[in-house]
């Protein structure tokens, strides 16, 4: 197993955190992980993204010029990253906020109404969890759902941990 993943969206959608969640979950299953956030000026107002590598083998380059998996949470991120996905790769897009369908036919594209699922569970802010829940269902070899849920306690700051019940509900809903 070797996946090179981009998680992208606008600031506040929790894409950096979603990438960290995958890393901690996979790390605790003894996989090698790396996570590079876009930072600084890139983060101000525009799109945010992170490059994540999860592998059974030691990671040489942590950069992700051509992802095997892209999770895009808004339309600008779809425009930016759809062309970069490796042939045969996976694109998960947030169809709550993205009206257009992806154009590529040489990759698997999966829409998920991430904001709607999050809202149905009573939160506007857990759309990232819906995307991760969907990814885990499609690529269970990255980490088990149990590991992802356990990783929430590490990745979520103490003051936000009270929302973890909602996070878990959204994760499971998107996963089923």
């Amino acid at each position, binding site marked *: 197993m070797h996946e090179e993943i981009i998680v992208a969206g606008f600031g506040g959608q929790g894409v950096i955190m979603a990438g*960290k969640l995958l*890393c*901690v979950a996979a*790390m605790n299953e003894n996989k*090698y*992980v*790396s*996570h*590079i*956030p876009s*930072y*600084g*000026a890139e983060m101000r107002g525009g799109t945010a993204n992170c490059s994540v590598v999860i592998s059974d083998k030691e*990671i*040489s*380059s*942590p*950069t992700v*010029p051509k992802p095997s998996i892209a999770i895009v949470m808004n339309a600008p991120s779809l425009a930016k990253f759809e062309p970069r996905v490796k042939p045969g790769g996976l694109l998960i897009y947030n169809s709550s906020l993205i009206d257009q369908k992806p154009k590529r036919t040489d990759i698997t594209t999966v829409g998920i109404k991430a904001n709607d699922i999050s809202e149905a569970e009573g939160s506007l802010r857990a759309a990232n969890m819906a995307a991760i829940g969907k990814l885990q269902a499609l690529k269970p070899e990255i980490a088990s759902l149990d590991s992802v849920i356990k990783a929430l306690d*590490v990745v979520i700051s103490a003051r936000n941990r009270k929302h973890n019940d909602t996070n878990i509900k959204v994760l499971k809903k998107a996963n089923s």
Partner: protein
Amino acid sequence: MNEKILMKGNEALGEAAIIAGCRFYFGYPITPQNEVPAYMSRRLPQEGGTFLQAESELAAINMVYGASAAGARVMTSSSSPGISLKQEGLSYIAGAELPCVVVNIMRGGPGLGNIAGSQGDYFQSTRGGGNGDYRQLVLTPATVQEMADLTVLAFDLADEYRIAVLILGDGYLGQISEALVLPKPTGKVFEKPWALTGAKGRKPNKVASLRLVPETSLEELNLVLDEKYKKISAKECRSESYLTEDADYLLVAYGTSSRICREAVNELREEGIKAGLFRLITAWPFPAEALRIASAKAKKILTVEMSLGQMIEDVKLSVKDPERVDFYGRSGGMLPETDEIKRRIKAYGN
């Protein structure tokens, strides 16, 4: 049980400094190293230490001078333009033979440049960015684990040689999170009889870099420093040779670009092309002897940097038949690409 945690490079470096006994940190914010001061501001008070955000980089490096003169383990960090501002202080620290750890998480330049990771400060780090006849030890981590491990080593080397040790990382290394096993304290103790500790029952010490009178001739100091630098050059070269024994094509790199090279080496080997990687762990002293050995059989030596060619000068000075040395670099915060490295190596075969 050595438990793995996911940690950002900048924060791993901060925690490692605390593990190494650093209790004083002085700095001034700049991206992409801001997690270092942020981390130290939270952790140092918990350990009974002092975190101080100085009014400028100049102030910060001179606070380092003061704390070091008093015998403390002390660190400052910055990124490229901020490190430029610290050069005067670093020269004074060299003249006064004070131990300290200085972190440069490089960003694009020249000038204010941008905030993306870069390796444009190799010359400044290894040639002495400040005035005078001096050297500083330069460590070049390539992973979060090394950001931590080399920080612990840096404090011991600083105290052992009474020298500034520079940790030369780049913005990507500062920002990347990876699994980390926290290093352990080495337990080494360094006596500091020269330190300014309040002269009770002994002659007063003096820590200075100004030597105007003949009795304390400057050349005498220069020669003492030279002896020290020779000793460091003989004893402290560090590097990693990866698949170099039979390598027809040798890549030479450090830090983030060395990781991209390692990926290229692995992929080239899968295609049956004998590529290898020589990675610096110290940039000064430059591991010339190890590079000579690693490059002995190579038909071509490709130096890869996130600059337009700085380390390549040391590579050319070190290897036999330097006409074998070629260069590939990206600058301005851009990264070298695995595919481009592979393309160039394959082109040598034709």
